């Protein structure tokens, strides 16, 4: 371990945290992934809305696309035109953001047009104002992940054998999987259903009854970014940052060539600690919140 690789590792962890946060907010503005099912359902149960409906083929594949396109473009600029890495990655991310914009726009139009019988309109002003917000967040995600991939493929003393676009694609898949598993819950279970009491998930009876109105006027998806940026986004960032950092940390403090067993053992210790921590977290929540008063069964809490 040397200070140089440790510094790079810290940078990777920080970049991953930012990437995770922006990925989650991007999907919240667009209502991508699983909370999308309620947005889709809302019009069906009689609540046409002005929420963005960006159904792009699941978060992991779509984020893999943004990141792979950004990394591919950056690599062309770096290798063919010998451009500086940072500028190339920024330009690559810009291309990725354009792709994101097109996919978002067509998904919004397509999904809403397919709900004609429920009177769900296609609002062009929603497209104009929200798509740019979504693209901006996608740019940040693609930029950060391409930077991580660049560090892994070119800068670290022990470079990764995979080519840069492939690394970016894998991290893109991972950040999408994490975003849809963590931050999206904050949007789906809390923000979409702020009209139900805090402290429980969505009651099946309320399915589709999403909040459509704001403090003043109609709720727009940009309000959702404002809400989710307070907790869901940073939490997602933590998850992805932890993944990138811990995974690479154990290969940095020990030399995989000679201390491979230690690298694996460190990982196992981390996994055990996380398991114990989760148990503590569960105990805390059960004690703090207690059983639901509506429960009528005979199993003692």
């Amino acid at each position: 371990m040397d200070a140089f690789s440790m510094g790079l590792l810290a940078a990777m962890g920080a970049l991953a945290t930012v990437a995770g946060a922006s990925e989650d907010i991007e999907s919240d503005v667009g209502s991508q992934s699983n909370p999308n099912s309620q947005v889709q359902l809302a019009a069906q149960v009689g609540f046409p809305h002005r929420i963005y409906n960006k159904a792009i083929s699941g978060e992991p594949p779509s984020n893999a696309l943004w990141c792979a396109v950004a990394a591919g473009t950056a690599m062309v600029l770096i290798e063919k035109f010998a451009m500086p890495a940072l500028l190339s990655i920024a330009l690559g991310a810009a291309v990725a953001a354009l792709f994101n914009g097109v996919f978002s726009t067509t998904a919004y139009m397509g999904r809403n047009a397919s709900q004609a019988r429920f009177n769900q309109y296609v609002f062009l002003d929603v497209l104009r104002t929200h798509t740019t917000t979504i693209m901006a967040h996608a740019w940040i995600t693609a930029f950060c992940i391409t930077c991580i991939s660049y560090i892994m493929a070119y800068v670290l003393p022990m470079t990764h054998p995979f080519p840069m676009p492939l690394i970016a694609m894998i991290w893109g898949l991972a950040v999408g999987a994490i975003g849809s598993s963590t931050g999206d819950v904050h949007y789906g279970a809390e923000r979409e259903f702020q009209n139900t009491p805090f402290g429980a998930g969505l009651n099946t009876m309320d399915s589709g009854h999403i909040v459509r109105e704001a403090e003043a006027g109609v709720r727009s998806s940009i309000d959702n970014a404002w809400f989710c940026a307070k907790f869901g986004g940073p939490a997602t960032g933590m998850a992805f940052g932890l993944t990138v950092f811990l995974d690479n940390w154990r290969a940095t403090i020990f030399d995989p060539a000679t201390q491979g067993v230690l690298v694996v053992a460190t990982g196992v210790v981390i996994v055990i600690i996380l398991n114990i921590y989760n148990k503590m977290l569960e105990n805390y929540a059960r004690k703090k919140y207690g059983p639901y008063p509506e429960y009528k069964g005979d199993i003692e809490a």
Partner: protein
Amino acid sequence: MTGIDATSVMYIIEIIIGGLLVAIGVHFVPVGGAPAAMAQATGVGTGTVQLAAGSGLTGLLAAGLMMKMTDDLLLIVASGAVGAMIMIDATMVVGNWVYIYGVGAPPASAKVNYDPITKLPQPPYMAPGTVGQGIPTVCYVSGTIGGLLGGAGGSLIYFALLSINGNPGLSGIFAIGIFLVNAVLASWNIQGTIEGFHDTKFKRWPRVLQAALLASAIIGVMAVMITGGA
């Protein structure tokens, strides 16, 4: 093109075992699908393939790095498995943060009355109108096992491929392809959501064995015949 000989038969077997590990590992991953994203069902709020691929491929990155340094099969597979476990564990812990602090609901399983590991009662903590929420200990441990199997399977496939063609890029993308085929077959077997090894749906896993066996065998035979050098 390389012919089929004893060594390549061994690699084919490794690819098949890897494929089976992935297919079985997916059954351990606790995914609640779309309902879980509304804290309406127990498990991680995403799709089976998505989470399995996210963790398994993170493991693949770790294994790829390790294989550059050593050719010890055990170490490479262990490294991949640990990488995948770290990813899925970090995800589930933060997922629980969101359920507990963001939604204000304690984790509870809907499929069992008492958690098989901690023996804690579950139904009183299940919010009305839902089928559980969050990731209780049994699901968490199950998910960790899923990450272990998925990461190990993916790394084993990568190990076999790289030993044949010596080209990390080619082996990497092939491993992703084989991983995805097996993960998708497994997720079709699960039909959406599963809580983990305590779920009744888990008993379906033998059905995916035939499918994954056949698919991995065919891909394996093709893959060992592809050379990596230009």
